[in-house]
C-alpha cells in the first residue's frame, strides 16, 4: 500500500504518456516474417499423424511463434523472434518427419520380411522342384542304363548265338567235308574193290550170267568116274579160295554135273560127290561151311552133246556160282 501511495503520481504520468504514445504513433503491426512460420506451424498441427509425433517441439514452436507475433517497434528484436519462431517450426517439422519415418520402418520391416519369406519359400519350392526334376532325371537315366545294359546283354547273347551257330555251321561244314572225303574214300575204295574184284574174276575165268558169276570147273579137275580132285586143279581152286577170303560177304553154290554115260542115278551121285569134293577143298582152305552150298545135278543140265567125246568132256564139269551174300545161297 505504501508503494502504491508513493508511486501513484508516477503511475498516472506513465499512463498518460502511454495514451499519448498510442494516440500519435501508428499501432505496431504484426511482423510479416512470422506469417510464414505460423502457416507452417498450422499445417504441422493440422496433420493428424505428424502432430502427435513431436508434441514438445510443436509446443515450443507455438510459443515462439506467439512471441514473434506480438507487435513490437523494435525491428531487430522482431527479426530475432521471427527467426527463432521459424527455426523452431522447422525443427518441429523435422522431428515429426523423423519420428514418422521411424514409425513407418516397422511396417517396412514387416513388408520386407514378408517379401523375404515369400522369396525364401519360393526358392525352397524351386529347389524342391529342381530336386524332384533331378531325381526324375536320375531315375530316367537309371532306367535307360538298365535298358541299355539289357539291350547290350541281348546283343551279346545274339552275338554268342550267332558265333555258336557259325561254329555249328563250321562243324557241319567240316563234317560234310569229312563225310564227302569219307564217301569219296569209300567210293575210291569201292572202285578199288570193284577193280580188284574184276581182276580176280578175270583170274577165275568167271562168266557173268543171270544166275550171278559162274566159274566153270572143267573135267580137268576130275578123272572119269572119280570124284577126287586132280592135283593139277589145285591152282585153279586156290584162286577161288583166295577170292572167297577177299570177299567174306560172298557165298558159293557148288554144282556138280556129269555126262550121260552110265546109269542116271549113278551120275547124279557122282555129281554130288564131285561138288562135295570141291566143298571139302574150300573147307580145307578155311572157308566157313555156312558160305558153301552144294548140289549134285547129274546129267540133267548138259552144256554140249553127249554123242562125242568132246561134248561129254564139256558136260563133265563143276560150276561154282558166286552169290552176292552168304544168305543168298540159292
Amino acid at each position, binding site marked *: 500500500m505504501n508503494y502504491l501511495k508513493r508511486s501513484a503520481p508516477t503511475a498516472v504520468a506513465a499512463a498518460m504518456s502511454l495514451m499519448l504514445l498510442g494516440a500519435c504513433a501508428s499501432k505496431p503491426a504484426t511482423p510479416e516474417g512470422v506469417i510464414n512460420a505460423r502457416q507452417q506451424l498450422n499445417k504441422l498441427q493440422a496433420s493428424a499423424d505428424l502432430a502427435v509425433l513431436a508434441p514438445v517441439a510443436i509446443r515450443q514452436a507455438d510459443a515462439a511463434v506467439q512471441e514473434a507475433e506480438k507487435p513490437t517497434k523494435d525491428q531487430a528484436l522482431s527479426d530475432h523472434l521471427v527467426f527463432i519462431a521459424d527455426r523452431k517450426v522447422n525443427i518441429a517439422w523435422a522431428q515429426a*518427419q523423423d519420428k514418422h519415418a521411424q514409425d513407418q520402418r516397422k511396417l517396412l520391416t514387416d513388408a520386407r520380411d514378408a*517379401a523375404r519369406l515369400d522369396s525364401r519359400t519360393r526358392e525352397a519350392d524351386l529347389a524342391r522342384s529342381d530336386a524332384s526334376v533331378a531325381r526324375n532325371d536320375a531315375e530316367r537315366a537309371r532306367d535307360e542304363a538298365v535298358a541299355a545294359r539289357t539291350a547290350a546283354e541281348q546283343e551279346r547273347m545274339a552275338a554268342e548265338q550267332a558265333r555258336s551257330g557259325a561254329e555249328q555251321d563250321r562243324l557241319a561244314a567240316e563234317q560234310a567235308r569229312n563225310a564227302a572225303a569219307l564217301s569219296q574214300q569209300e567210293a575210291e575204295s569201292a572202285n578199288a574193290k570193284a577193280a580188284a574184284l574184276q581182276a580176280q574174276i578175270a583170274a577165275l575165268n568167271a562168266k557173268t550170267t543171270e544166275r550171278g558169276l559162274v566159274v566153270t570147273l572143267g573135267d580137268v579137275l576130275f578123272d572119269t568116274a572119280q570124284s577126287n580132285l586132280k592135283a593139277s586143279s589145285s591152282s585153279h581152286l586156290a584162286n577161288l579160295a583166295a577170292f572167297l577170303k577177299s570177299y567174306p560177304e560172298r557165298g558159293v553154290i557148288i554144282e556138280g554135273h556129269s555126262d550121260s554115260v552110265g546109269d542116271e542115278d549113278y551120275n547124279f551121285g557122282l555129281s554130288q560127290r564131285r561138288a562135295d569134293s570141291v566143298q571139302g577143298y574150300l573147307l580145307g582152305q578155311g572157308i566157313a561151311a555156312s558160305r558153301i552150298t552144294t548140289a549134285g545135278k547129274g546129267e540133267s543140265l548138259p552144256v554140249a552133246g553127249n554123242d562125242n567125246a568132246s561134248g561129254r568132256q564139256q558136260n563133265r564139269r563143276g560150276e561154282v556160282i558166286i552169290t552176292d551174300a552168304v544168305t543168298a545161297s540159292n
Partner: protein
Amino acid sequence: MKSFLQPEQWTMAAASHWLLVTTVLLSVMACSSVPAPVAELAAAEQAILTAEQARVNTYAASELAQARQKLQDARAAVVQKDMLQASRLAQQSKLDAELALARAGAAEALAVNDEMKKSTEILQQEMLRNQTGVKP
C-alpha cells in the same frame, strides 16, 4: 557449462574456443557493466558440437555452416561489446545447429526407409521373375 562436455570430447579446437570466449568475457566484464551472453554462447557451441558428432554434414551441411557462421558473428559482437546482438546471434546459432541435427535425423531416417523399400521391391521383383519360370 563444462558438464556438457565429456572429458574425452575435449579437442584442441574446443579448448581454444573456450579460451577465447573466456578471455573476451573477462575483458568485457572488466570494463563494462553489461554481462556477455556466456550461457548462450556455450549452448550454441555445444549444439554445434553435438551436430558435428552426429555427422550432420552429410545431410544438413548448409544449416550447420550457418550455425558456425552465427557463432563466429556472436563472438565478433562480444568483441564489439554489443552484448545484445551477441546473445541473439548465439541463440540463432544454437537453433541453426539444432535444426541441422533434426533435419539430418529425418533425412537419414527417410534414406533408411527408402533403402528398405528398394530392397523389398527387389525381392518382390525377383520373386515375380522366378514365378515366370526363369531360374535365378
